[in-house]
């Protein structure tokens, strides 16, 4: 039934979808009669979406969670009805939205093939024709007469996938299903998708896997909060989306840093006020008092009052790039006579794993003796050779005996290291790679 020619395989025209969010999901008859149905809010999932997909094109839909991708795909599959606008489809559609939807667990694999394929719109004689292909692809020959309730989830999915692709549609809708199953099943899925592409079928894919999208698709739309943010060449749009995601991530980090800073600032103010008030409080007895001091201990003869991260030029920064040079600076105020204190820092990762720790003594600095009221600024110049992620700084002022501490604050500052690439691990060992072709035909 494919209408060939210049008309597109599928056209989405001004599609808008509003969901009604009712405060009570399924009202009873009584409520409806007594209260009417006015208790709802509108949520706009898609707003005036227009695009078309040509015959033989592989088309991608990307966007962050809640951007309306799946809603759009369901509207194309005719499962949902748009609030306004229309979708025109030339040809048969098969949706890989949910594999094995409609399987009945008491029926055997064979019976479910007939049932599921007819739900997907296949005629009985077509099912008979493709029956062997379906079983062969699913690799379930010896289990086909067992009820599917005895199948593993992998077998279940394989059967569902085999049926869906054997419906042999003109247009295939794929929603994230490529992300399920084991390695070999996944590669099989990809093979099928490539096969579809080579046979000139139209494919519409929704995925979070941007590499897959830019690999498979010619054109992509990027949805943002139910609207088309960008549409066009896959590499360009995927890059734009990546930039958007990074920006969001950066904003999140800045916001987090701001909250963190506020907390530290508050703790510093709190500790200052206590000095002004002249309250002599035994530092050790303060252990565990107040949120801010939960991770702090020490004799209190010296006190860390401020910590910050600066770039090479001395500007305050919240995050840094991998292998950037930064300064971690903190100020210490003395309350009593302290001889030759040892200033230290420790960097831990999110699992509380010590990435690096050092101190002034190890680095060969001899410190002076200080008395009440003296103030010192300690600066660690640091190269952040770390893989992107979140790290925490612990600072300490230790006694010269290296056994006791005047002040020790765990995870007082967060360093957010931006991802350079997707290398794994903790340390960025700055690999360089080169190739030398020894033999090449």
């Amino acid at each position: 039934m494919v209408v060939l020619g210049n008309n597109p395989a599928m056209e989405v025209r001004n599609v808008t979808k509003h969901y009604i969010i009712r405060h009570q999901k399924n009202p009873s008859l009584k409520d409806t009669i007594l209260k009417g149905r006015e208790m709802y809010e509108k949520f706009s999932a898609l707003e005036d979406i227009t695009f078309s997909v040509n015959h033989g094109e592989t088309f991608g839909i990307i966007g962050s969670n809640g951007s309306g991708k799946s809603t759009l795909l369901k509207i194309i599959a005719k499962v949902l009805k748009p609030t306004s606008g229309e979708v025109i489809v030339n040809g048969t559609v098969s949706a890989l939205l949910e594999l094995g939807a409609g399987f009945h667990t008491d029926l055997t694999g064979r019976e479910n093939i007939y049932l599921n394929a007819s739900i997907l719109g296949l005629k009985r004689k077509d099912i008979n024709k493709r029956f062997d292909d379906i079983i062969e692809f699913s690799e379930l020959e010896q289990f086909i007469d067992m009820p599917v309730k005895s199948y593993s989830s992998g077998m279940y999915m394989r059967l569902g996938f085999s049926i869906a692709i054997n419906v042999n549609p003109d247009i295939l809708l794929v929603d994230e299903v490529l992300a399920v199953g084991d390695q070999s099943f996944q590669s099989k899925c990809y093979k099928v998708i490539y096969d579809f592409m080579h046979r000139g079928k139209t494919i519409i894919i929704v995925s979070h896997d941007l590499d897959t999208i830019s690999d498979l698709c010619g054109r992509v739309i990027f949805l943002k909060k139910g609207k088309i943010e960008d549409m066009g060449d896959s590499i360009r749009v995927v890059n734009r989306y990546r930039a958007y995601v990074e920006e969001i991530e950066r904003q999140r980090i800045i916001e987090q840093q701001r909250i963190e800073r506020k907390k530290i600032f508050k703790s510093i103010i709190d500790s200052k006020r206590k000095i002004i008030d002249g309250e002599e409080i035994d530092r050790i007895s303060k252990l565990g008092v107040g949120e801010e001091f939960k991770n702090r201990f020490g004799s209190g003869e010296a006190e860390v009052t401020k910590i910050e991260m600066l770039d090479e030029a001395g500007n305050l920064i919240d995050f840094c790039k991998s292998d950037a040079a930064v300064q971690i600076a903190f100020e210490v105020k003395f309350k009593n006579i302290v001889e030759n204190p040892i200033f230290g820092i420790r960097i831990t990762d999110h699992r509380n794993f010590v990435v690096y720790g050092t101190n002034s003594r190890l680095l060969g600095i001899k410190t002076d003796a200080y008395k009440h009221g003296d103030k010192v600024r300690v600066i660690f110049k640091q190269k952040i050779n770390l893989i992107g992620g979140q790290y925490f700084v612990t600072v300490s002022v230790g006694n010269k005996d290296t056994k006791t501490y005047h002040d020790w604050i765990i995870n007082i500052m967060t360093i957010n290291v931006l991802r350079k690439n997707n290398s794994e691990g903790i340390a960025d060992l700055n690999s360089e790679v080169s190739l030398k072709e020894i033999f090449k035909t």
Partner: protein
Amino acid sequence: MISDFKKLFAYRELLYSLTKKELKVKYRGSVLGFFWSLLNPVLIMLVYSFVFSIVLRQGIKEFAIFLLCALLPFNFFSNSVNYGANSIISNANLVKKIYFPKEIIPLSIVFSNFINFLLELLILFIVLSIFKYKFYMYLYILPAVIVVQIFFVSGISLLVSSLNVLFRDLQHLVSILMMVWFFGTPIIYPLSMVPERFQFIMQLNPMAVFTIFYREMFYYIKHSEGFNIPSLRVILICLGISFGFFFLGYFIFKKIEPKFAEEV
């Protein structure tokens, strides 16, 4: 609506598959599968026969057969509607994921119950021939009655199954309503026992008219002279109401259908 019927016709094989599934699932795992489904009418028959012919001594000859002729068609109706009411919700995974004319779901329940009804009729015929009823004499009327009944049952099922998606408490109401309907239909009593002035109102209920027909065909063949069909007016009204309910149910179902995927 015509395009809806065309689409339904295009999906007739799915209706066939789903009906088959309903029957298979029902009888799977027990050799006596179908006979279990007979247990319910047989028990009801025994209980009512005891009450009416031994305790109350109504004087209806061969009460068990009198009852059975009316009970089986009514069970076809009430089972279809009772199971059908919840059918859209219990098939949420299909409704949300795959596009197809959704009326196939309640209709497949109607048809599986219909197949069941046919099998029960066969059993009834065996019983009738044992007790020397000439049930075959007017058998040619049976297809017409059954077809009209299927339309009526389908209409009510479509209506109830779609409304139940919007108002979930409807299914409780339905089971109570079915009980009222059971007693409002001349099943455990003959229509002639009903006071004259109520008889016409009662015959507005298509189930009552069907019951009269089934009983004339199978029961009164032995116990009374000739074939006492209801008046033409009653038959026409019955046809009107039956087809009216079918179209109303179909229309309302189609109106609510677009909301199914969001509501279930």
